[in-house]
């Protein structure tokens, strides 16, 4: 079981290393969207500081959704998904390994680059830590929830749009907690409540989402 999970993780990471373009797209999307706002709303520092947490979080959310559609689509197209479904390890474990690999290449870079984006918004340096931590806790939750949607819409026509409609409403609590935690710090309060709730969401989604993903994969490959 552990061997299967490790194999999937190593396999997906190796595929991304040999075709880095796919992972770079999501990161570039994040950078561009987050950079468009200061250009659009103008260079008023107070305004930028006020919108920064929300804008960065929304950009991260859209970027992580962008790469979701490919999470299972490639495996579905070349037949390897059938082999995963018929594997000797429980499908939930395999799904969790796939989501983890996906987060390592599409979520973790967002966390790393977010402080750099925050510079454009003149965000106070003491907020960087909270911003990065909230993204670190929140983006895996987005991955787990999104993977359920990706599995459900697998092989459908117009899967991308359907996936967005299905998944974005479910992202709302993560967005509120994530952006809220940064706003708490900027208001001089402790962000512990929001961060703990995000951590709780992460634990719950990591425990239950893999089995929902597995069930969804079985339904959509029928």
């Amino acid at each position: 079981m552990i061997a299967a999970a490790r194999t999937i993780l190593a396999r997906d990471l190796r595929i991304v290393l040999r075709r880095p373009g796919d992972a770079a797209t999501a990161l570039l999307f994040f950078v561009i969207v987050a950079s468009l706002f200061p250009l659009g709303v103008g260079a008023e520092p107070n305004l930028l500081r006020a919108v920064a947490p929300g804008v960065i979080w929304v950009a991260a959310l859209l970027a992580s959704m962008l790469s979701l559609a490919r999470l299972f689509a490639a495996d579905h197209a070349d037949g390897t998904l059938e082999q995963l479904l018929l594997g000797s390890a429980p499908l939930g474990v395999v799904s969790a390994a796939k989501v983890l690999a996906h987060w390592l290449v599409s979520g973790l870079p967002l966390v790393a680059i977010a402080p750099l984006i925050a510079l454009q918004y003149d965000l106070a340096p003491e907020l960087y830590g909270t911003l990065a931590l909230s993204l670190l806790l929140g983006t895996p939750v987005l991955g787990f929830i999104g993977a359920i949607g990706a599995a459900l819409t697998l092989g459908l026509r117009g899967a991308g749009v359907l996936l967005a409609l299905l998944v974005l409403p479910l992202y709302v609590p993560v967005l509120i907690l994530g952006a809220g935690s940064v706003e708490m710090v900027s208001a001089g309060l402790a962000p512990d409540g929001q961060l703990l709730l995000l951590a709780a969401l992460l634990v719950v989604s990591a425990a239950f989402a893999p089995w929902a993903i597995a069930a969804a994969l079985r339904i959509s490959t029928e």
Partner: protein
Amino acid sequence: MLEASDLHCRRGTRTLYSGLSFALGAGELLRVAGENGSGKTTLLKILCGLLDPDAGEVRWRGEPIRRLREEFHRQLVFLGHAPAVKDELTAAENLAIACTLAGRPASMQDVREALARYGLREDSAPVRRLSQGQRRRAALARLMLSADAPLWLLDEPFAALDAAAARLTEELIARHVAVGGAVAYTTHQEANIDAASQRVLELA
């Protein structure tokens, strides 16, 4: 070993088959025949549990495969229509991964030998650069490392293969049946497999 009872399968409004029952025992070879669209692939997918029949049940050693799931998967090799290899990885990486996921890890040495038997010696090229037939060989090489899986379900194993590779595949199937394995396969080509007990299941 494998028993299908009263399978009923519909695709859209068309009934592919109903009341289909058969058993596949140790050392038996079953060829699923029928014209295009008669449901051969669907039947193999039902047998391995990828699809649910509309009615009826598939049992493995008396237990429904729905209930066994991973336990059944460990005793099964299913090779579908698509070669199930990742374009970005080499044939050897693909084969090693497939074996590990099937719960039958193989050493790199064995993997290389299996691929060499199927005429794939070049190590470093990703599968993307291989031809359709070579991909097929890369997928079939898994059979060389799956002798201890009692049940093989093969969908069109001879498609896109040249004569030598087809011959080797026939030999592998024959050897598996001879040592007590069970094989069900579909094919359009004339296959000449040397097995004591072979049957043809004709889907109308």
